[in-house]
C-alpha cells in the first residue's frame, strides 16, 4: 500500500516537473528566449509556488523527484554526442583546449574562494562556493569525497548556473567574445549544465563546446580541489 502511494507521488512529481517546464518554456518562447526568461528558473518558481499552495513540503517533492536522476544521468552521458560532432576540431587543438579549461577551472575556484574570504563568509560557505562552477552531480561527488557541505554546494552550483546562463551570453556578446567556440567554452566552464542548456536553445553552434567545457572543468576541479582543500579556511 505504502509502495503504491510512493509511486503515485513520484508520478505526481514527474508530471509537475514536466508541466512546469513546458509552461516556463512557453513563456521563454513568448519572450523570444530573452536571457532573463530562463526556463529552468521559471519552472522552479512555478513548482515552488504550486508546492506552497498545495502545502507539500519541498523536501518531500525532492525525494520523490529523485527518480529523475536516472534520465538526468543518461542526458549527461549523451553530452558526448555533440562533443563527438566537434571531435576533429577538438583533437587538433587538444592541449591548447586543456590549457584554456585548466585556467578557467583555476579562475572558477580561486575567484570564489578569494571573494568568500574577502566578504568574511563562514568557513562552511567558503568550502561550498569552491565548487560553484561545476555541475551539481560533480559538486555532490567532490564534497562527498572531501567531507564538505554537499547539499549546500549543489544548491549554490545550480544558482551559479542560472546566473551564468542569464548574464554571460549578453555580456560576452557585448565584449565581442561570442564566436561559438569562445562563448561555448566560457559558458560551459562558468555555468555548466544550466548554461549549456540555455545555449542549446539560443546558440546551438556553441553548445558542443559548452558540453566539453563542463565535463573537463568538472574533472579538473575534482583533481585540483583536494590539493588546496586544507588551505581554504
Amino acid at each position, binding site marked *: 500500500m505504502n509502495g503504491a502511494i510512493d509511486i503515485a507521488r513520484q508520478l505526481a*512529481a514527474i508530471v509537475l516537473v*514536466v508541466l512546469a*517546464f513546458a509552461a516556463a*518554456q512557453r513563456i521563454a518562447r513568448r519572450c523570444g528566449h530573452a536571457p532573463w526568461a530562463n526556463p*529552468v528558473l521559471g519552472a*522552479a518558481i512555478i*513548482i515552488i509556488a504550486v*508546492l506552497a499552495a498545495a502545502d507539500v513540503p*519541498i*523536501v518531500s*517533492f*525532492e525525494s520523490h*523527484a529523485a527518480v529523475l536522476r536516472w534520465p*538526468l*544521468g*543518461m542526458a*549527461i*552521458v*549523451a553530452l*558526448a*554526442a555533440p562533443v*563527438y560532432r566537434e571531435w576533429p576540431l577538438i583533437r587538433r587543438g587538444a592541449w*591548447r*583546449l586543456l590549457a584554456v*579549461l585548466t*585556467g*578557467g577551472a583555476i579562475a572558477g575556484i580561486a*575567484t*570564489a574562494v578569494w571573494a568568500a574570504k574577502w*566578504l568574511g*563568509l563562514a568557513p562552511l560557505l567558503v568550502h561550498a*562556493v569552491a565548487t*560553484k562552477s561545476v555541475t551539481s*552531480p560533480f559538486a555532490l*561527488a567532490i564534497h562527498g*569525497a572531501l567531507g564538505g557541505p554537499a547539499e549546500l554546494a*549543489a*544548491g*549554490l552550483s*545550480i544558482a551559479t548556473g542560472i*546566473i*551564468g546562463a542569464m*548574464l*554571460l551570453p549578453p*555580456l*560576452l556578446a557585448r565584449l565581442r*567574445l561570442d564566436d561559438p567556440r*569562445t562563448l561555448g*567554452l*566560457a559558458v560551459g*566552464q562558468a555555468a555548466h*549544465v*544550466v548554461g549549456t542548456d*540555455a545555449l*542549446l536553445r539560443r546558440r546551438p553552434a556553441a553548445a558542443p563546446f559548452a*558540453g566539453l*567545457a563542463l*565535463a573537463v572543468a*568538472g574533472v579538473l576541479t*575534482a583533481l585540483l580541489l583536494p590539493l588546496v582543500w586544507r588551505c581554504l579556511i
Partner: protein
Amino acid sequence: MMQPLYRRGKRLAALLVPLMLLLAGNALAPLLPLRLPGAIIGMVLYLLALVHIPALRATLPAAHALIGLLGMLIVPAAVGLVPAFPAISNSSAGRLALLLVITTLITGIATALLAKALLKPAGP
C-alpha cells in the same frame, strides 16, 4: 546490431546505450581513486565508443533527444535550492549573492579571454 534496430524507428532501443554506459559509469565510480560522478565516466565511455565503434553512431539522434530534456531534468535541483537556504544566515545571503554574480562573470570572461588568446581561429 544497432543499425537495423534503429532503422525500424526504435529510438527507445538506442536509449539503452546511454543507460548501459551510465550503469557502467556508476559501477566504475567507486573503483577509481578520484571521486567522479558515474554519469561523467559514462560520458567519457560514450565518447570513446562513438570514436571507435562506428555502429554506435546510429544512437546519435537518440542522444540529442536526451540532451533536449537536460533543462527539464535539472529543475528538481533548482527547486532544491530552497531547502539549502537555512544553512545560509540572513546576514550572509546578500554577500553570497554578490559573490555568485561577480565571480561567475569573472570566470566566464577569464575563460573566454584565454580561449581567444590560446586557440587558433576556428576553421576557414
